[in-house]
């Protein structure tokens, strides 16, 4: 055996797990394990910096470490799932609120038309009643207890809201839809929606022509919530890249979209106009708002780690930042040096 062969350490295996070099942090995976000649210890030499690492280590004496690791991982996953559900629900709720606001103008139109229709029905009913009754009986039964009399004119308002002046029915002038907003809370009569709703929508120019732009106000809370959740996902999914972390908001937005469209089934009977228009506008405005939430969440994911790093640098002294160094390492940055 030559001298050089005697100095050459004997290779008998290679590392088959992640093991960081204590010198430079290089991953020693797949590096050859050798037996050095002085003590016969199993060592591995870092190919980057040449630091020798001893591979002999204690066996894990207790199973509790692994159990705790599993427990902490399970709790973390449950918490993340809970936050994911909350995130999806908040997007769905805000999209419904947006649809509600977007439908206010159309709600006024529908409610207004329904109001005129119901007044007409009342008038016809009253006329039919008057035709079947005697002149003496017709004045009093449904009238208010105290008819208003002024200058020989007697005004009676019936319980149905029909006004009669000296026995003649006067059609009341309803408020115009633009000035009220109260028609959103009109209770739709059974059967009216099936018979008249589509015609009212078509006559008014359609759903898109009558969007109440006040729904844009929902962009303010949407921006705040979306950015905050994006920042959270960016930090919580520190193990993955930011591009992969965007998948979580994407999935949440898709689920929210499906929930919104699935829940929005317009019911024409026994409902408030507000509820009806919310259901009508949800499939129109909801996906647009959810797409906006997705974009804002992506923005949050993009800036999240930077924000977290700024907060850590602001809040913690230099020596306390070291355990949170992953915030820098994941993005290939170096820990900031203390000034």
């Amino acid at each position: 055996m030559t001298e050089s062969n005697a100095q050459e350490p004997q290779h008998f295996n290679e590392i088959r797990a992640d093991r960081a070099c204590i010198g430079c942090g290089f991953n020693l995976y797949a590096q050859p394990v050798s037996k050095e000649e002085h003590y016969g210890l199993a060592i591995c030499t870092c190919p980057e910096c040449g630091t020798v690492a001893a591979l002999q280590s204690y066996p894990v004496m207790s199973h509790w470490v692994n159990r705790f690791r599993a427990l902490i991982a399970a709790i973390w996953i449950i918490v993340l799932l809970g936050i994911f559900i909350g995130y999806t629900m908040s997007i769905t709720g805000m999209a419904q609120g947006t649809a509600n606001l977007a439908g206010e103008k159309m709600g006024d139109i529908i409610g207004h038309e329904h109001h005129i229709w119901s007044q007409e029905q009342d008038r016809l009913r009253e006329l039919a009643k008057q035709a079947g009754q005697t002149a003496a009986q017709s004045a009093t039964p449904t009238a208010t207890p105290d008819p208003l009399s002024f200058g020989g004119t007697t005004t009676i308002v019936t319980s149905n809201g029909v006004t009669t002046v000296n026995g003649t029915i006067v059609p009341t002038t309803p408020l115009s839809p633009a000035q009220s907003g109260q028609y959103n809370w009109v209770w739709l009569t059974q059967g009216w929606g099936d018979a008249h709703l589509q015609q009212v929508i078509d006559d008014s120019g359609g759903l898109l022509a009558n969007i109440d732009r006040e729904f844009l106000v929902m962009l303010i809370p949407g921006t705040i919530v979306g950015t905050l959740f994006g920042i959270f996902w960016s930090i919580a999914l520190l193990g993955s890249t930011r591009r992969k972390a965007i998948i979580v908001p994407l999935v949440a937005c898709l689920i929210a979209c499906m929930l919104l469209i699935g829940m929005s089934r317009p019911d024409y009977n026994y409902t408030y106009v507000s509820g009806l228009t919310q259901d009508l506008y949800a499939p129109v405005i909801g996906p647009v708002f959810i797409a906006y939430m997705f974009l804002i969440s992506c923005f949050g994911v993009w800036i999240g780690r930077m924000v977290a790093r700024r907060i850590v640098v602001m809040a913690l002294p230099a020596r306390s930042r070291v355990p949170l160094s992953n915030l820098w390492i994941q993005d290939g940055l170096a820990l900031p040096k203390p000034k």
Partner: protein
Amino acid sequence: MRIVPRSHTCPSCLTELGRIRAAPDPHYGLPVVVCPSCSLATVRQRHPDIEFWRSFRRVHSAIRGVVLRIGLTIGGAALIALFVMVSDDMFTIHGQFSPEYPFATGDPQLAMGALMLLGTCMLLMMSMVLLYRHRSIFFAIAIMLGLTLFILTIDYTFVWIERTMAQLFAFISDARYPRRSEMMGRFIRFAFIGSCSLLGVVPALLLGGIVDRSDRRRFRRLLNKRRKQRRIHD
């Protein structure tokens, strides 16, 4: 204090090597212990069980530090903003604040309440300066007063955003600005309470020195303990 070294047993003959000093070997610098009974050389390393808990504790304490500091900052600013909002009739009878006569009501209970309020604000500012003493005093003051001002004007800000959007996208906004007199009152009270809270910087500077000295003493104690431990253990 008696320091007991961690156990280190020879894997070959089970001799206790805990009290033998692990000198860095001349070839690789590894902490090698040669067993006096069987001459087997072993490297002294930390147990993975201990390492797990140690790293867990480090990360936990760092996260706790961040959450506590941020929480205290936001909570402190919100508390000062709350004091500013509720103190409109604390200083004067009809909320007409006059800096010359801050306690014009003459009601001793109200005056005591106002003093306690100012004392609390000073304490909060003192805590902020102590918390952010690794940065600078001005940073702590700026972050505290800036955050308070933001909370105080949050309603105005949101109304402004909504009305700007209403103008931009041509819809009718029903949001109303707070009254001018209300905003002026808020700003004057904020200026008074904010400047009073700045008095908390003085005790913070004195306490900061004491805390820093205490930290240094604690660090020295820990260092001495570790050195002693290493002398026995290695």
